């Protein structure tokens, strides 16, 4: 009995000592993401990009003279789990800021928790506009869906390199905020340009059969199909469209960006287009450096957009902490809000008044199982994210 008490006491003292020591020489940042579950490559890519940035920051001396430590929580690709993950990061790990998520649904679930605790949250790649509207502590390191949807609609209708389509069908994931948002903004721009939406069909995450919807779409005879979904389904959708004898291009957003789209879709994805945050083909020194470092660290893997945004989010946050000169949540928030021309690997990042990063978008075309760079669209060109 006495021994038990002694041990308990010892544990108490050491853990108190650890905590005290930790508070002194390191800065703790939280990360939540889908390391497992339906969209696991989103979370793992983001984490890999983030770790790469973290290594670079820490090996060059950290920030404010301290090393940064990132505590990562897995939300299993579920919005409910994202809430618990962030609660744990804030109340148990005492993080000073949070990076996450990719999926807008999960960012939206977790954002109110951060807002309430006045902990700045930086989403690397959630593009739905509602995410940063949650409150003044919520930021993102990417463009938003009105811009993404409009850019694709303009490209598909007007650009010489695009399909020059006027009749569109849409197949979207009805349970996904990201997909629902993109569908809305794409539709608006198509209609504003005088085009037609001839079919509007939906599916649910995890579906494997889309032939019923595609049969309806085929009957409406569109020039192109907009599929603003995630890589988990778009490969299959492309294949089944080809199975039914449809040769028209399918188009999507940054949710397409994963090797899995090519591996699952194989020949069927050729001739399709998607909008993205960057292209590994881009001939800029920052992209080249990033791709080279990433390949060196992760067994020659080519980084996808989630990886580069994870990298930039970590860099932006470290930069904001440096400028804030403090680990106080409010000061970091203010510094993040004043981010101007931060030289990220995916482009220069400036925060607008709604805490969304203003950045160019790239349009990629899939040919021979590879996404080729087609065009860049600047933020103001496509009605600058109204």
């Amino acid at each position: 009995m006495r021994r038990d008490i002694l041990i308990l006491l010892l544990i108490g003292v050491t853990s108190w000592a650890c905590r005290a020591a930790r508070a002194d020489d390191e800065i703790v940042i939280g990360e939540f993401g889908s390391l497992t579950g339906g969209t696991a490559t989103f979370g793992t890519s983001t984490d890999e990009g983030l770790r790469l940035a973290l290594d670079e920051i820490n090996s060059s001396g950290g920030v404010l003279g301290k090393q940064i430590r990132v505590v990562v929580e897995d939300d299993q690709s579920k919005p409910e789990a994202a809430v618990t993950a962030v609660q744990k990061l804030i109340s148990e790990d005492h993080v000073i800021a949070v990076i996450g998520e990719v999926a807008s649904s999960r960012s939206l679930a977790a954002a109110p928790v951060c807002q309430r605790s006045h902990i700045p949250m930086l989403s690397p790649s959630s593009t739905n506009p509602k995410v940063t509207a949650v409150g003044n502590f919520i930021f993102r390191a990417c463009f938003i869906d009105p811009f993404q949807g409009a850019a694709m609609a303009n490209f598909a209708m007007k650009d010489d390199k695009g399909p020059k389509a006027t009749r569109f069908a849409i197949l979207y994931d009805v349970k996904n905020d990201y997909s629902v948002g993109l569908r809305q903004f794409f539709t608006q721009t198509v209609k504003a340009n005088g085009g037609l939406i001839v079919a509007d069909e939906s599916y649910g995450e995890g579906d494997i059969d889309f032939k019923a919807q595609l049969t309806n779409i085929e009957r409406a005879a569109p020039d192109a199909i907009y599929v603003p979904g995630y890589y988990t389904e778009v490969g299959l959708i492309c294949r089944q469209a080809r199975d039914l004898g449809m040769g028209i291009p399918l188009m999507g957003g940054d949710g397409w960006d994963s090797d899995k789209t090519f591996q699952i879709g194989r020949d069927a994805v050729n001739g399709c287009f998607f909008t993205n945050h960057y292209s590994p083909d881009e001939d800029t020194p920052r992209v080249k450096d990033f791709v080279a470092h990433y390949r060196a660290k992760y067994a020659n893997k080519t980084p996808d957009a989630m990886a580069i945004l994870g990298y930039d989010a970590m860099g932006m946050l470290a930069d904001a902490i440096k400028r804030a000169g403090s680990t106080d949540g409010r000061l970091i928030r203010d510094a993040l809000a004043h981010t101007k021309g931060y030289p990220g690997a995916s482009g220069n990042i400036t925060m607008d008044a709604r805490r969304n990063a203003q950045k160019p978008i790239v349009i990629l075309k899939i040919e021979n199982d590879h996404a080729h760079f087609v065009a860049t669209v600047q933020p103001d060109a496509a009605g600058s994210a109204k």
Partner: protein
Amino acid sequence: MPQFQQFVQQLINGLSIGAIYALIAVGYTMVYGVLRLINFAHGDVYMVGAMTGFYASTRWFHLQQPTWAGFFLVLVCSMLVCGTLGYFIELLAYRPLRNQPRIVSLITAIAVSMLLEFGGQAKWMFGPDPKPFPDLIPGVEAHPDLVHMGQLVIGKVDAMIFLIALVMMFALRYVVRETKMGLALRAVSYRFDTAALMGVNVNRVISFTFVLGSVLAAVAGVLVGLRSPKVDPLMGLLPGLKAFIAAVLGGIGDIRGALAGGFLLGITEAMVVSYFPKGSEYRDGVAFLVLIAILVVKPSGLFGRAVQEKV
């Protein structure tokens, strides 16, 4: 595409997905028929079947070209792994609880299901990311269509799944009705304590049921991999649920019922998408409403007989 052609195409779409529901539904129905237990892990056994198919073809045998021999090799591997898995699930999770109230087994079934889903996502198991299932059937890559009339398309793989589902059902019906093991199975299903007194080895019969159901799930898993080449650890969740509904619809415990229920559910879904306004959004909801309506009219399902509860 003319109206009629669209209808026929949707019918084909429905039959093709329905055949998959049917193959999974048989496993539910058999286990329920014998044990009165809803084996919620069954959908996940189907997932393991598809995963084994993926690993067998890409990692174990490194199949480069689609050949029939390769396909059967992969199929047999998958059946062996799932059969073994089914055997051990029954042995370790359900057998110790057989004399407990039924709710205990039901909860255990949910636990086994979660173990497979989340255990499967671990890095040292399958990992969480979806995997591209390879082509195993020769000639499908170049010419995927069996029939291509105007805009009407029947895929080779779809036709194959349909046929295999039918053949499996008849084979199963034969096993249950004509063999000695089938007789024992029916005896256990009717009253298992009496069957035990008559010298039937109840444990063996129940193990056999689980193995058989799991083997069918493995076949479904591999076939789905060929049809929709994306396999991941959570792929069993939704089809498992729908197959369960199909089994209930057909009259749970009845093998013909599982087949009919699977096809009916598949066709209902396709038709809802085609003919309801905003159908694809309400597909699952409307499809399930139709099923509820059928069950209200005929609570024991299409083929089920009303059984009087023994007091």
